[in-house]
């Protein structure tokens, strides 16, 4: 029985990975095989032509850097702000604390997609249309509620006695915050970062709405759509670009796999 289940599990794993395999395969297939009406699930003549087309002709490297820049700024800003807020919500008892907590929970549920219209006008009035800054700002805001909620569990897990002892030894509040709590919460921050990173990295809607004319400031999701053409899609280039877009997240995800689950557990249980 166990052997049957093992086989089923491996078969499912193969099926789940298959689209990713197909994407990478199509990216390295020579142009002739991509156009073929008899696609084979392997290739004997892998080529990097599609990647060259994507990077050299369409300046994909620039969009890649734009995406990285936006995601990194969002991760750092959202991480720091969420850390401060999480400390306030776990280390202190104050009036309205529960109300604030519930507000953060509700904020996670808000369909931010519905806010595209007012945010478009807000960004326009700030003169920030077509800038990467507009994307950094909105995604910092969108990732905050979840980051705060998730970090709360990690801050709560650090024993109170630790910061009390440090204060007795004469450490200032700031020192306690940055020298004691921050390093201890770092693993939680790593898990939170993954979610913020992916949120910013994957964003298609706001990139499409805010970056209208400045093609230099496009991010990956929009740049990818360039290869869809009315007459004939350049599938090799589309798959190469998709692979480039997937790779960083995939590596990131598999590296922090264990922490991610632990972090989710923390956010779920707490």
């Amino acid at each position, binding site marked *: 029985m166990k052997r049957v289940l093992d086989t089923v*599990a491996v078969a499912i794993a193969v099926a789940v990975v298959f689209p990713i395999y*197909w994407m990478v395969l199509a990216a390295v297939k020579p142009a002739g095989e991509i156009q073929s009406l008899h696609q084979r699930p392997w290739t004997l003549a892998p080529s990097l032509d599609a990647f060259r087309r994507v990077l050299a002709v369409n300046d994909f490297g620039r969009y890649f850097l734009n995406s990285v820049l936006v995601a990194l700024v969002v991760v750092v800003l959202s991480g720091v702000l969420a850390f401060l807020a999480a400390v*306030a919500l776990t280390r202190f008892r104050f009036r309205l604390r529960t109300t604030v907590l519930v507000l953060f929970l509700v904020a996670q549920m808000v369909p931010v997609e519905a806010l595209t219209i007012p945010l478009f006008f807000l960004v326009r009035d700030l003169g920030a249309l077509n800038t990467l800054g507009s994307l950094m*700002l909105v995604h910092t805001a969108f990732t905050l509620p979840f980051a705060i909620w998730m970090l709360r569990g990690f801050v709560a897990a650090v024993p109170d006695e630790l910061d009390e002892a440090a204060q007795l030894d004469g450490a200032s509040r700031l020192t306690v915050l940055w020298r004691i709590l921050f390093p201890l919460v770092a693993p939680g921050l790593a898990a939170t970062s993954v979610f913020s990173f992916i949120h910013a990295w*994957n964003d298609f809607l706001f990139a499409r709405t805010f970056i209208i004319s400045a093609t230099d400031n496009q991010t990956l999701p929009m740049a990818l759509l360039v290869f869809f053409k009315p007459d004939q899609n350049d599938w090799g280039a589309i798959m190469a670009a998709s692979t480039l877009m997937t790779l960083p997240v995939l590596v990131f995800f*598999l590296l922090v796999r264990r922490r991610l689950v632990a972090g989710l557990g923390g956010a779920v249980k707490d």
Partner: protein
Amino acid sequence: MRSRFTPLWLLLPAGIVLAALFAYPMYQLGLISVLDFTQAQVSGGQPTRFVGPDNYTRLLGDGQFWSVLLATVGFAAACVVATLAVGAALAVLLTRISRIPRLLLSLAAMAAWAVPAVSGSTVWMFLFDTDLGFVNQLLGLDGHNWFYGRWSAFTLVGAAVVWAAFPFVMVTLYAGISAIPGSVVEAAALDGATTWRTFWQILVPMLRPVLAIVVIQSIIWDFKIFTQIYVMTRGGGLAGQNLTLNVYAYQQAFASSEYGLGSAIGVVTMLILLAVTLLYLRTLRRSGEPL
């Protein structure tokens, strides 16, 4: 760290960001939805005019809105059910297999989870492409266009969504099941309970808090799917047959310059999800989770 004002200072930065980019836009959304707000107002040619519930009455009297609303609910419901069924089944499967297959399956799921929505959409489009798609060539469906029919297009988008979403359910439920003491399940097995019965009568009740979170999160995610629909059906399908509320609102606003109408659709979406959220909060409180 024990001053009265410290928590305020710590919350302030996050509070400012959320007030400016979350609360204020929500207020603005409501405001625009009761205004006459089209291209003329945006370019500053005409002053905005308060029209009260006009946008809403227009919406409610529009057959397409109801059709889109129905499609959104149906699509989200199908995605949620499929995601939960696949995720739960695989979570249980994970508990009953050897180490190596378990590792392989969780790595595969993690990989699918990590693929950005845009990349995932393009891959599924390529797999089901009319001429060059592997699926058509495999099934011998020469020249069959999957995006032509409303149902088959929705099904395909749904498959891409479930593929990307089941790992979250699987991983979370597996973590929950692993936390249940093995002795409970063993005792049930000794008493002669089948896997099916163990699942429904022991695991499900014990996992209720985790399940609630997974269900609500899935509902919220699937209800507001934008990227997959927009990319895979090229902005809502032939003659808008695959529109969902989010994409519909977007198209009304940014393609037809009907910002007031788009905002009204946004408000409707928000109200529906708010109702779901309140349900969630009630479940949380019932299960006695301290905040």
